[in-house]
């Protein structure tokens, strides 16, 4: 019983946090105070639901409790706290209208969740703070959890969040959905943050596990939320498709003993076909806009892999073509690297090696283990064992992820002496 209540609270925390917070900001007009009230509401749920049962609509219950707490605080604080700077200036709902059904202003609150994420991902805030604020305010993670996700110590993360909140208040970073003309650029910043969360989870930069499941799930939740709020935006659709299609292959990426398995060697019957189906349908939708955006193109590449029956049957020409389109709209060295690797599979290791060597002077890639490990793989296939060994050793110097390191060490061992 208790554990099912705990699960219900955890589920409400994961799925309703942003909604409850946004609805509470409507009452407090301030994010900091609203956060406090929402935390309090979740604590009360833990205390009350075991006796009174899980409410039919947990989000509505939590919203009502958090809002009541907000009114309480406002009455108590109104006299002496007036001078505190507000984090945002949101329109405040009249307390008399507060007991209305939480659904009644659901549409407005949905809009408020967008305001919240656009405030968190404002370009005037440092990128690493954008990510941290998004996890805090949209996903309800504690500072400790955010710190753990990014391998930063707690004090440093707390300082980062405090500094960002101060800037939002002092510089009046607006709490609103950007106008139609600003929207594409501002939305791109939001999607970049969500994508960064996903990639951080998908291949953890350090630590014992290859995948940080929690970060992947948070990014998927955010992408689903954005897609529900902006269903017609092809970039949002593209990002959701990309996350689904990449994550659908997760069950094949690590074997039973926790070792990393390359795409080429994965058992494709492990892949989640239902998720792939959902992702492919979304990719088709996202590709309708011409020219397609970067997330739609990345998702299309993931879809080619996901739908290919085997590694050998992969349409590498299609993949090289998609990477070329991607490189044209997003000239990033990492995209160029991925394209070069695909060239190696489409036209043979010699061609791949040439394409990789053309990128050798790219400073961004110098510290990137994937360039060295890809070179190593092409060299091995060409029988250039000594050079391959050096390249694997170089790749080992560049990654801290335990699973990736083990994989590279195995490759080295297999090369022999």
């Amino acid at each position, binding site marked *: 019983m208790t554990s099912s209540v705990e699960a219900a609270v955890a589920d409400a925390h994961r799925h309703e946090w942003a909604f409850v917070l946004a609805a509470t900001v409507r009452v407090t007009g301030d994010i900091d105070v609203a956060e406090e009230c929402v935390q309090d509401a979740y604590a009360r749920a833990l205390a009350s639901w075991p006796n009174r049962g899980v409410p039919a609509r947990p989000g509505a219950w939590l919203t009502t409790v958090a809002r009541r707490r907000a009114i309480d605080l406002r009455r108590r604080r109104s006299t002496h706290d007036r*001078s505190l700077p507000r984090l945002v200036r949101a329109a405040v709902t009249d307390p008399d209208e507060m007991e209305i059904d939480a659904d009644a202003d659901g549409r407005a609150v949905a809009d408020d969740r967008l305001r919240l994420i656009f405030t968190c991902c*404002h370009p*005037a805030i440092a990128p690493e703070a954008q990510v941290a604020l998004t996890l805090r305010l949209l996903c309800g993670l504690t500072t400790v959890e955010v710190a753990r996700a990014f391998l930063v110590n707690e004090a440093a993360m707390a300082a980062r969040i405090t500094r960002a909140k101060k800037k939002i208040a*002092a*510089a*009046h*970073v*607006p709490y609103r959905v*950007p106008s139609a003309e*600003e929207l594409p650029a501002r939305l791109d910043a939001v999607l970049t943050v969500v994508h960064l969360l996903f990639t951080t989870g998908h291949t953890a930069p350090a630590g014992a596990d290859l995948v940080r499941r929690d970060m992947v799930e948070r990014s998927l939740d955010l992408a689903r939320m954005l897609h529900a709020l902006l269903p017609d935006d092809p970039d949002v659709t593209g990002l959701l498709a990309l996350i689904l299609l990449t994550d659908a292959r997760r069950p094949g990426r690590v074997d039973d003993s926790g070792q990393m398995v390359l795409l080429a060697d994965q058992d494709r019957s492990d892949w989640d076909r239902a998720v792939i189906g959902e992702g492919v349908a979304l990719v088709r939708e996202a590709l309708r806009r011409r020219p397609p955006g970067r997330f739609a193109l990345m998702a299309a590449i993931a879809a080619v892999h996901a739908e290919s029956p085997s590694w050998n049957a992969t349409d590498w020409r299609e993949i090289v073509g998609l990477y070329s389109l991607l490189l044209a709209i997003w000239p990033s060295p990492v995209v160029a690297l991925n394209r070069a690797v695909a060239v190696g599979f489409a036209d043979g290791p010699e061609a791949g090696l040439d394409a990789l060597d053309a990128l050798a002077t790219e400073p961004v890639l110098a510290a990137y283990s994937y360039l060295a490990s890809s070179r190593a793989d092409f060299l091995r296939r060409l029988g250039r064992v000594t050079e391959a060994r050096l390249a694997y050793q170089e790749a080992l110097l560049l990654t801290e992820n335990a699973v990736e390191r083990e994989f590279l060490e195995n490759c080295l061992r297999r090369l022999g002496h």
Partner: protein
Amino acid sequence: MAEYLVLIYEDETAWDNVEPDRFGKIMAEHQSFGERHAKVIRGGNALQPTGTATSLRKDTSGGYTVTDGAFAETKEALGGYYLVEAADLDEALAVARDVPAPFGGVEVRPIRTFD
């Protein structure tokens, strides 16, 4: 309404070597910027180059050390400013984007109020 100071940071050597025609053009751009945003501009000035600056720093004996030059030597130096009124940072940035600063850029700082 909040106020923001838009600080213009530019490369002074570029200004030293500017052709008279170009100089006139930039001045005209400031003129039209001022007219375009007259409603929200609360003030503004161009500054003499940092070579004319004098800096004062408190010394250990309670007095001041007076030195020739700007407080901090940077490639792009503060060369002028506008004080603008705006509802929020986005509005301020929209005005700041129009400030002519061909040899550098601008920094937008919210004005602090004490009440």
